[in-house]
């Protein structure tokens, strides 16, 4: 009889609070016609009992090992410093950061609520529940309500992570409420699904199997975050670089409505399968089905023709959509969300100007932000910019700063050269590489340089900056001329000449 003690505890439901309220529920005065059937409690008492059961279940849900693990994983990924450009977050992307963690918490919650729904069956205590006064559909409802605190916890984590990003001085853009809501709503939706699965089948395998299916759909089958991809619980952004907010085209609002409707649908269906087939449940079922279908259809329409045209224009004719701001001799033109970064860019351009010295430093220049919003296939690059230096939408990593400094240096010292391929193979490359590294105050060099150029550059960087600056200013005109040989470059800059003289002396790569 070792199992007896446990069976009693489980038959009680679900813990002391649930039992107390259910036991003290006032029997309705009219009384049932069948003296053996359990009496329906008065509505207020039934509500109290439901809430009490929900509280107990919520506490048990929070202590489920998988839920704890998922919560821990979410906290670790959100709040442990990673290697990303943490200091310069783009807020209309930062609002999605918590969604992956929320999906995992939701999946863990689904397995946990499913296991809670099947607990009585597992311990062979179904029959005891039949004599309890709390009706099955109320117990079902309580199990869904128990997911609310978990959803709230995820909402708080999401908000905390977002606020931390939003309060950073380097933050740009603006988050969307719908994106922030997606995480907690996913948790709610999946927990409701777990309850429904428990009502549909007593198999303990179903919830892990559905979890696996959802993971596969979200991470293996879904490609670009457009169209039918939005039927998945969460849709990660796959853009390699941040886009302007206006070009995102993420139907996050409809997605939240869709998820909420599915949560309601699952709850109502679970109620239906636990025997509550009144008019209310039926109308909620139909209503939720209609809303889920509508929102689902609206969110999967894909980008509108207008948005596609906007993306095309923003990519190939950025001047038409950008705002400009002038700092000293430099004008910065950027998509309006990114304009606050002009101060950061200005620090770099001023450093380049200082290194170059008069008269070149006085020339007015423009910096233009570029982004590939159409997702051009590899090999087809964007139309080259006008005479301006270009800057991307990412910021805060050494590589992006170096690329920007190099681009600005190019526009400053090689003004009459069309920046055709963006790369040179003569003295100009060494000069630009040195200006970029010296202006950004790093020890790295531009990625993707030729071996010989990189060797010269590293030797140059080992010398005192003041001396190199003097030589650069003195020979600027010659260094910026096309086709200067590597030997001559080495001589002008005061570094050792290349080992294999004559092999790469022309400007051809």
């Amino acid at each position, binding site marked *: 009889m*070792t*199992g007896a003690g*446990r*069976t009693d505890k489980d038959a009680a439901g679900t813990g002391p609070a649930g039992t107390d309220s259910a036991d003290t529920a006032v029997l309705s005065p009219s009384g049932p016609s069948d003296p053996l059937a359990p009496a329906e409690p008065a509505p207020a008492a039934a509500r109290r009992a439901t809430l009490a059961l929900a509280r107990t279940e919520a506490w048990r849900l929070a202590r489920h090992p*998988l839920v704890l*693990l998922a919560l821990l*994983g979410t906290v670790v*990924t959100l709040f442990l410093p990673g290697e990303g450009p943490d200091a310069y977050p783009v807020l209309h992307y930062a609002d999605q950061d918590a969604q992956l963690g929320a999906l*995992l918490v939701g999946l*863990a919650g689904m*397995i946990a609520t499913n*296991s809670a729904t099947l607990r009585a069956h*597992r*311990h062979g205590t179904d029959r005891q529940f039949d004599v309890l006064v709390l009706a099955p559909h109320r117990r079902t409802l309580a199990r869904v309500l128990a997911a609310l605190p978990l959803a709230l916890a995820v909402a708080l984590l999401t908000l905390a992570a977002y606020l931390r990003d939003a309060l950073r001085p380097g933050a740009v853009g603006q988050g969307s409420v719908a994106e922030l809501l997606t995480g907690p709503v996913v948790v709610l939706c999946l927990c409701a699904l777990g309850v429904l699965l428990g009502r549909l089948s007593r*198999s*303990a*395998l179903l919830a*892990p*199997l559905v*979890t*696996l*299916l959802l*993971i*596969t759909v979200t*991470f*293996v*089958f879904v490609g670009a975050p457009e169209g039918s991809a939005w039927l998945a619980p969460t849709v990660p952004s796959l853009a390699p670089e941040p886009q302007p907010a206006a070009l995102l085209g993420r139907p996050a609002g409809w997605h939240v409505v869709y998820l909420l409707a599915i949560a309601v649908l699952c709850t109502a269906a679970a109620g239906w399968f636990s025997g509550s087939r009144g008019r209310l449940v039926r109308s909620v079922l139909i209503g939720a089905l209609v809303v889920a279908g509508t929102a689902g259809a609206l969110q999967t329409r894909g980008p509108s023709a207008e948005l596609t045209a906007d993306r095309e224009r923003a990519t190939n004719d950025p001047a038409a959509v950008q705002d400009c701001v002038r700092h000293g001799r430099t004008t910065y033109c950027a998509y309006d969300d990114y304009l606050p970064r002009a101060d950061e860019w200005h620090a770099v351009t001023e450093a380049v100007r200082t290194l170059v010295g008069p008269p070149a430093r006085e020339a007015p220049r423009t910096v233009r932000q570029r982004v590939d919003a159409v997702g051009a296939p590899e090999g087809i690059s964007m139309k080259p910019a006008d005479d301006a230096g270009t800057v991307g939408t990412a910021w805060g990593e050494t590589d992006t700063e170096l690329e920007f400094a190099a681009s600005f240096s190019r526009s400053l010292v090689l003004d009459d050269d069309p920046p055709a391929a963006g790369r040179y193979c003569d003295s100009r490359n060494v000069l630009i590489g040195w200006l970029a590294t010296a202006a950004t105050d790093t020890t790295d060099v531009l990625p993707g340089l030729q071996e010989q150029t990189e060797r010269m550059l590293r030797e140059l960087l080992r010398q005192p900056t003041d001396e190199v600056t003097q030589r650069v200013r003195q020979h600027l005109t010659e260094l910026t001329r096309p086709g200067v040989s590597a030997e001559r470059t080495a001589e002008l800059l005061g570094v050792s000449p290349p080992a294999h003289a004559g092999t790469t002396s022309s400007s051809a790569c």
Partner: protein
Amino acid sequence: MPAGRADVRGRAPTASGAGTRARLVAVLLRTESRALPWRSPLAAALVGLLLAAVPWAFAPELDQGVRLNVLRATALCGALAAAFLLDDPARHTTGAVPVPRPLRQALRVGLVLPVAALWWAAALLLSQRGDAAVRAEGLPYGAVTLEAATLCALAVALSAGVVRCTGVCAPGAGVGGAVLALVVVVMALQPDGFELFVPLRDPRWEVAHQRWAVLLAVAVLGWAGCAPDPVRRLGRRRG
């Protein structure tokens, strides 16, 4: 039938002849095949096959990299099914029979193994249907099979561990969740120096599959270690 079973069980402790052992196995094969939980694992296997067929049915142009991940999902379905293999609601009544537990567990695995092999072959075939150009790229079947076998062996070993260390009759659900969680954690972290789920044509492919082989050995040894009945009861007995 019942008389025969009682007869075999009654004589088992003293009998040592090979003939008796063979008869014992023959009888147990029938009883274990009836005691095996067939329905849930079959459902999982079916879902796995459906997953493997998705590229063929909906996107024949999907490349081998995606197909590899789909096959991994199929293998996980198999692992979920394998987690339920040692579920035995009658565990506490069979605890007293003189047939050692390793034999009963081995019989269960042996019964399922041919079915599982057929299933996996079908999954591999299904995953390769579709675009001829994609098929020409080829997929390292051996390595993928190693991954699948390891995942399933891990699930069985974990179930055996739960059976050994607790009085739980049906470890399947818990172990299934644990296997899923384990895989998600490994995929999410991709710990440096312990990558397991590497993409195709990755330089770490070879090393990763040596790790898989080690894991398979550990799982099999773990199962072998957990299969025998403990001399003394560990943990508390549950109901």
